[in-house]
C-alpha cells in the first residue's frame, strides 16, 4: 500500500504508539496515508479505537513477524 509518511513505533508501549500517531497525523494533510509499525500487541485494539474516535480511517492492519503495520488515512 502506498503511504506518505512512516512512523516507527517499534519497542514502544502504550500509550506512545497512539500519541505518536496523533502527532504524526498533525503534520500531514487530508487524504495522506500514515504507515505505523508497532510491536505492542495492545496497539491492535488501540489503533482501531483511535481511528474510530478520531475519524481518521484505518485502511489496513497487517500482522507479520511479530510486528503490526497500520495504514491510517488523515481525515
Amino acid at each position, binding site marked *: 500500500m502506498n503511504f506518505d509518511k512512516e512512523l516507527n513505533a517499534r519497542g514502544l508501549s502504550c*500509550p506512545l504508539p497512539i500519541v505518536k500517531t496523533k502527532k504524526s497525523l498533525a503534520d500531514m494533510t487530508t487524504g495522506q496515508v500514515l504507515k505505523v509499525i508497532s510491536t505492542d500487541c495492545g496497539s491492535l485494539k488501540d489503533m482501531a479505537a483511535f481511528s474510530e474516535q478520531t475519524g481518521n480511517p484505518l485502511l489496513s492492519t497487517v500482522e507479520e513477524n511479530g510486528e503490526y503495520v497500520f495504514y491510517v488515512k488523515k481525515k
Partner: protein
Amino acid sequence: MAKKMAIIATKGTLDMAYPPFILGSTAAALGYDVQIFFTFYGLQLLRKDLSSVMISPLANPAMPMPVPMPVMVQMLPGMESMATMMMKQKLKKHGVASLEELRDLCLEADVKFVACQMTVDLFEFDKSEFIDNVEYGGAATFMSFAGDTDICLFV
C-alpha cells in the same frame, strides 16, 4: 464540541504517577479537552525534578517482586531506592515512556494542569520547584471544569 476528561491526581508514588499522565496524554490524542487537578501527594508530580518520585514495596503487597521479600527486609535503608531503580529499568526495557516524557506529551497536547492551592500551602510547597505550566485553584475551580466532563477519574 470536544469531549472532556478530568482527573484528580492524589498520589505521588512512581506507580500511581503513571495513570494520570497516560490517560491524560491518550485522551488528548483522541481529541479530548483534558484537565488534571493535582492535590495532596499528587503535587509531587508537578516538580521540575521528578527524581524524588519513588516506589516502595513496603505496604504494597500486590507489587510483583523478582524474589519474595519479607516485610522486615523491605524496611531496610536503601530498599526504596533499589525498588525504584529496578522499576525504572523494567519500564524502560518494556518501552514504557518515562514520567517526564509523558508529562511533556500532556503539556504539548494542551492538557491543563491545576495545582490545589490549599495543599500547596498546607505542605509549604515552593512553587518555584514546580514546572511553569501550572495554574492554581481550589475545589470550586475543579468543579467548574469537572461538572461538564464525559469522563472524571480519581487517582
